[in-house]
C-alpha cells in the first residue's frame, strides 16, 4: 500500500523517520514553550495587577490623610 501511495504521490516521502522524529521534537518543545510563556505572562500580569492596586490604594490613603489634615 505504501508503494502505491509513493507512486501516486511521488513528491511525498511517507513515514520518513527523520522527519517524524523532528516533528515529535517540535511538538513537545513547542507545547512546553507555549505553556511556559503563558504561565510567565499570567504570573507577571497578576503581580502587576496586585502592585498597581496596592499603589493606587496607597495614593488614595495619602490623599485622604491630606484632606483630613486640611480640615483641621
Amino acid at each position, binding site marked *: 500500500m505504501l508503494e502505491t501511495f509513493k507512486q501516486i504521490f511521488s513528491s511525498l516521502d511517507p513515514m520518513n523517520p527523520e*522527519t517524524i522524529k*523532528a*516533528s515529535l*521534537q517540535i511538538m513537545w518543545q*513547542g507545547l512546553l514553550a507555549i505553556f511556559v510563556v503563558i504561565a510567565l505572562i499570567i504570573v507577571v*500580569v497578576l503581580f502587576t495587577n496586585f502592585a498597581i492596586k496596592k499603589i493606587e490604594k496607597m495614593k488614595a490613603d495619602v490623599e485622604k490623610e491630606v484632606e483630613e489634615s486640611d480640615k483641621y
Partner: protein
Amino acid sequence: MLDFLIEGFKQLTISQVAMWAIGALLIYLAIKKDMEPALLLPMGFGAILVNLPLSPVIKEGSGIISSLFAVGIEASEAMPLLLFIGIGAMIDFGPLLTNPKLFILGGAAQFGIFITVLLAAMIGFPLTDAASIGIIGAADGPTAIHVANTLNSQYLSAIVVVAYSYMALVPIVQPLVIKMCTTKKERTIHMKYASGEISQATRIMFPIIVTIISGLIAPESLSLVGMLMFGNLIRECGVLKSLSDTAQTVFANIITLLLGITIAFQMQADKFLRIETVIIMLLGLFAFVFDTIGGVMCAKFMNLFSKEKINPMIGAAGISAFPMAARVVQKMGLKEDSSNHLLMHAVGANVSGQIASAVVGGLIIGLVTKLM
C-alpha cells in the same frame, strides 16, 4: 493576419480554466455565503487574474501582483505583519485580564497545530511544508502567511486558502466537535462573570509584558507578537485615539485589500492544482478539530483542580478565530440553557488564543529553522 486576436486562446490551458472555476467558487462563497469576504473575494478574483495567459500582472519584475508579492510578502512579510497592528488595535484584552487563567485555554487550543505537523510529516511532507500546513491550525491568516512564507513552503497558496476557508467554517466545524467531547451536564455549567475594573495602567503594561516575555522565550515570534501588541498599545494608551481608529479601520482595510490580491500570485495553476492541495484541505480540517478538542479537554482537566468549574465549551473558544469562536460558544451555551451567558468568558479565551497562536507561529519558525 488575425493571429494576434487569438494568441490568448491558443495559450490557454485546462488547468487555468480550472483555476477560474476555483476563483469563481471563492467569490461565490465570499458574496453568497459571507465567508471571510474581505479575503476570499480578492483571492478569488486574483486567481482568475493570474491564470489568464500572458497575464502582465505576474510578469517578473514589472507585474503589479508579482511586485506586490515580492515587496509585501517575500521581502519581509510586511503585509501580514502590518495587518496584525490593526488586529491588535481591535482587541480588548479586558475579559482576559479579569480572569487570566483563561490564557491556559488559549495555549491548549493550539494543540491541533502540533498534531497536524506530526501527521503531515507522517504522510510525507518535508518538515518545512509539514510545519506550514500545521500552522493552519493557528486559525489566523497573517500567522499562516508569515510562517508558510518564512519557511519557503511550496504550498503557500493552498495553505492560505484553506486557513481562511476553515476560519469561516468555524461555526459549522466546532459545534459538532464540542458536542462529541462534552456531556449535556458539562455544557450547562454556569460561570460567574466578575466584571472587575482593570486599571488603565494594567491595560498599558499588558502588551509590553507580553512582548518582552514572548521575545525572550520565543524570539522568532516577536514579529507577530510585537505588531499585535503594538496595535493593542496604541488602543489602550488613551492618547492616540485617532491612530487607534485608523489602525482598526482604514489601515486594516487597506492592508486586507492588498493582501488578498497579492496572495493570488501563488494561485497560478501550476502552483495550486496539485493532488497535495486536497491532502492539505483534509489536514487543515484535522488541525481545527484537534484545536477544539485540545481546548475543551484542557478545560475539563482544569475542572479537576478548580472549585469554580469552567464550562468546557470555553476551551473551544481558545482557537484564534476571533470573534467567531466566542460567538459559537455563546450560542451553544444559550441553546443548552437560555440563562447561561458565556460570551465574556469565551471572548477572554478567544483573545488569549490570538496571542498564543502568534507565539506558536514564531516557535514553529524557530524550531524548524534549528532542525534544518
